[in-house]
Structure formats: structure tokens, C-alpha cells
């Protein structure tokens, strides 16, 4: 009973906040509504039994992706009112994308009716892990049977990191950075000069 109530609460809030994401005029408000949608999606994931995915949604999507969206929104110098003026012009494209997503939903429901997914076991022969928790079952599959996908995820992360650094990092010439190894390597005899100037004459350094 409580589960049914919680499901309808989370589902309603997801849809409502998703509508606000696309309807609100201020893009910063859109991002904040997106965070609400992520939280409620995490609640739905908990209800369906995918606890690890739920926690990932909160940690990664709410904690990191939403902040990144906020940065992008605040960094871009775009007149959003002007962008929204093309709503009618881009309407057919939007409808096309929505139709593709609906088709995916229908296919997903059809696949779910075809029976449970048999993802298999770590080595493909042993009995499935039935009494283990969600996160253990994910780990048992991800790091043995699907390890190629896992390693490619690591490569993609590496590419993303290097790409972001290459695109956004600039050496700033106007600031004088501290070079610690140069400081440490300095010896007293090259740091100080002992001179005995004659009376009445200056010192040339």
C-alpha cells in the first residue's frame, strides 16, 4: 500500500518537474527542476529494487551532472528568450524526437512482457546469484562477464578528461606561478653574491 502510494508520488513528481524543466523561462530554474526530477527518479529506482542505480543517480547526476549543467548555463552567453522564439519553427523536429522516444518506450514494454532478462552469471555456467544484494550482483557481472565494456568505459572517461583539459586549459602568461622544484634546487652559492665594493662606488649585479 505504502509502496503504491510512494510510486504514484514519485512518478507524479518526476513528470511534473520534467514539464517544469522545459516550461520554465529561466534556464537556471530548469536545471533546478532537473535536480528534482533526478531525485524522484532515484526514488522510483529504489521502489523497483535497483538500489545501486538509485544511489548513483543521487551521487552522479544530482551531485555532478546537474552542477555541470548549471555551469554551462551560466557560462554560455546566450539570449535564451531569443532561443525560445524558435519554438514553433523547431516543433516538427521536437515531435520527431518525441516519437522516437515513444517508440523506444513501447519496445521496452514489449521486451519486458517477453519475460525476464537472463543476464547470466559471472562465468556463464554457475547458478545465478539469487540471494545476493543488488550491488553485489552488478559487480559480479560487470567485472567478469562484461569487463570489456567496463574497460571501454574507463577509456571513454580518459578521453573525456584529456579532451576537457585540451579544450579549456590555457597557460596564463600574466601570472607568475610558483615552481617548487626550481625553488628546492636552488643552492646558497647561486642565490647570494658576496661583494666588497670600494668606498664611493656602487655595485654592479
Amino acid at each position, binding site marked *: 500500500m505504502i509502496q503504491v502510494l510512494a510510486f504514484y508520488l514519485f512518478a507524479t513528481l518526476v513528470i511534473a518537474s520534467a514539464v517544469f524543466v522545459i516550461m520554465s523561462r529561466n534556464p537556471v530554474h530548469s536545471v533546478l527542476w532537473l535536480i528534482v526530477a533526478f531525485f524522484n527518479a532515484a526514488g522510483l529506482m529504489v521502489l523497483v529494487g535497483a538500489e545501486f542505480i538509485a544511489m548513483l543517480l543521487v551521487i552522479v547526476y544530482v551531485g555532478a551532472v546537474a552542477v555541470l549543467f548549471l555551469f554551462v548555463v551560466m557560462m554560455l552567453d546566450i539570449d535564451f528568450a531569443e532561443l525560445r522564439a524558435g519554438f514553433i519553427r523547431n516543433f516538427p523536429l521536437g515531435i520527431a524526437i518525441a516519437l522516437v522516444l515513444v517508440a523506444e518506450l513501447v519496445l521496452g514494454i514489449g521486451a519486458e512482457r517477453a519475460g525476464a532478462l537472463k543476464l547470466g552469471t559471472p562465468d556463464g555456467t554457475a547458478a545465478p546469484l539469487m540471494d545476493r544484494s543488488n550491488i553485489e550482483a552488478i559487480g559480479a557481472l560487470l567485472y567478469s562477464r562484461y569487463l570489456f565494456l567496463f574497460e571501454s568505459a574507463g577509456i571513454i572517461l580518459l578521453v*573525456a578528461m584529456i579532451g576537457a583539459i585540451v579544450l*579549456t586549459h590555457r597557460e596564463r602568461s600574466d601570472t607568475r606561478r610558483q615552481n617548487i622544484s626550481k625553488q628546492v634546487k636552488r643552492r646558497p652559492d647561486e642565490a647570494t653574491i658576496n661583494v666588497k665594493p670600494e668606498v664611493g662606488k656602487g655595485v654592479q649585479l
Partner: protein
Amino acid sequence: MVDLSQYLPILIFLAIAQGLSAAFVFLPIGVAYLTGAHKPDAEKLSEYECGFPAFEDPRSQFDVRFYLVAILFIIFDLEAAFLFPWAVSLDVTGWPGWITMMIFLAELVIGFAYAWKKGALEWE
């Protein structure tokens, strides 16, 4: 089916927190509406006396370096997220699983060394 009864206290806390925050937001609004005078006027929102209209949008642009910090944070956040299922399922995956994770970590250590060497982790 997963036992969801452990999540009931969280749901109750969530309801209490939402009720409290709603009260904090709407109670002052309601009290102010009921007790205060409500006389909106365009002049009240205009620039006062010698003030002048704003020259530009108050939301100034961010430095792109914030974005770099955020994306590095996301990447290492995801790396840490991959560590959790690995740590609890090592008894099933064994040494192959351990070596898999070490290769994954080595990939990201390459990126980390690159970021460090390029000075992407420093502000100035």
C-alpha cells in the same frame, strides 16, 4: 523482491522534511499576507532618486576554468562509483576482477598524471 521496509524511515523523514520546509516557506508568506499592508506600486520597484537603470545583465559569465574543475570532479566521481560494486563482489569475481579494476585505475591514473602535469588542477 527487495525488502523495502528498511526505507520506510527515510520516507517518513522525507515527508517530515518536506512538511517543515513547506512551512518555513509558506508560513511567513501567509502571515505577511494576512497582517501586512499590500499596496503594490510601480514606483516601489523603480530606481531610487539618483540611481540609474542597470547597464547589463546582472548574471555575468563564468570563467571556463570552473567547468574544467567540474568535469574532472565528475570523472573521478564516476571512478569512485565503479569501485563500490567491485569492492563487495570480489569474492565472486576473484583475481580476474581485481586485475580488471587495476587496469581501469591505471587508465585513469594516466589521465590524472596528464591533468597534474598540464597544471589543470592548479587555479593560477
